[in-house]
């Protein structure tokens, strides 16, 4: 995969990112209501994974790099989920 292909691939990824940006801003006009946050976060997640896989070349890296890059996001998920388990269940009555 020589640098020329790498350059064109970067260009394609860039176009996709800008399109996703337009999509997320555009989705505001559709007044999706409760689905709004879900759509926005899905688009952001797709943009993020595009950048991680292509621009940060994790796709062509060793399994160790996959582990380290996934580890950060996994731990963030642990922090968010367990803390939210407290906040969400504060008003439960039994």
């Amino acid at each position, binding site marked *: 995969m020589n640098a020329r292909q790498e350059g064109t691939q970067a260009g394609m990824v860039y176009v996709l990112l*800008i399109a996703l940006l337009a999509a*997320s801003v555009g989705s*505001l006009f559709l007044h999706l209501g409760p689905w709004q946050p879900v759509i*926005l976060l899905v688009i*952001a997640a797709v943009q993020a994974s595009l950048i991680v896989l292509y*621009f940060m070349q994790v796709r062509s890296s060793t399994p160790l790099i996959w582990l380290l890059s996934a580890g950060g996001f996994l731990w*963030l998920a642990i922090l968010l989920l367990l803390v*939210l388990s407290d906040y969400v269940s504060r008003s439960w009555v039994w």
Partner: protein
Amino acid sequence: MNARAILYEQFSDLEQQRESSLAGIWAFIASEIMFFGGLFLAFTVYRLNYTQAFNEASQHLNLVLATLNTAVLLTSALTMALAAASNKMGWKYSTLLLLMVTTLLGALFLAIKGIEYIEDWHKGLFPGSAFAWTGSDPGHVQLFFVLYFLMTGFHALHLMIGMGLILVMLLLTWKGWINSRHFMPLDVTSIYWHFVDLVWIFLFPLLYLLGAKI
């Protein structure tokens, strides 16, 4: 100009040295993700509790400037990726040019951010003594702006660090230290720059789009 690479004595070959640098920056990126994670947690918890106030507050932010800023940052990610690719091809001058464009785009982002901050200041949205909020629920709205200025402030700080690193890379490429065989420092900087871009990709929808009303 023959491209020479430096092999530090604790590594046995160049390949091992490259993989070590990659593993090192990725471990650091994992720690940076957790650093911003604390702020994202605070935002998520408070937005769940005070959705009404947070929506109202984010409607007072300038959505146009923010969307423009996101586009600027995505473009700088492209030029950074192209710079890393062209360096591997050994095209020194195109690498220098692309790095300069990336720095300029970074500076443009900071400029737009500055304009936004000044506008927010004049609207009396800066928390603390200067906070003037006529609408409902000033306490929780001020909480939103505390988080807004903290998150975008830390992001801008990391962006400046990234721009500093790119300037160093510019110097090293210009002096020939970084070339097609010794490209690791530039790859590490590009990964850091893409991380800063990654943070903004999540900041933008959370702060601007979730509450936007069009």
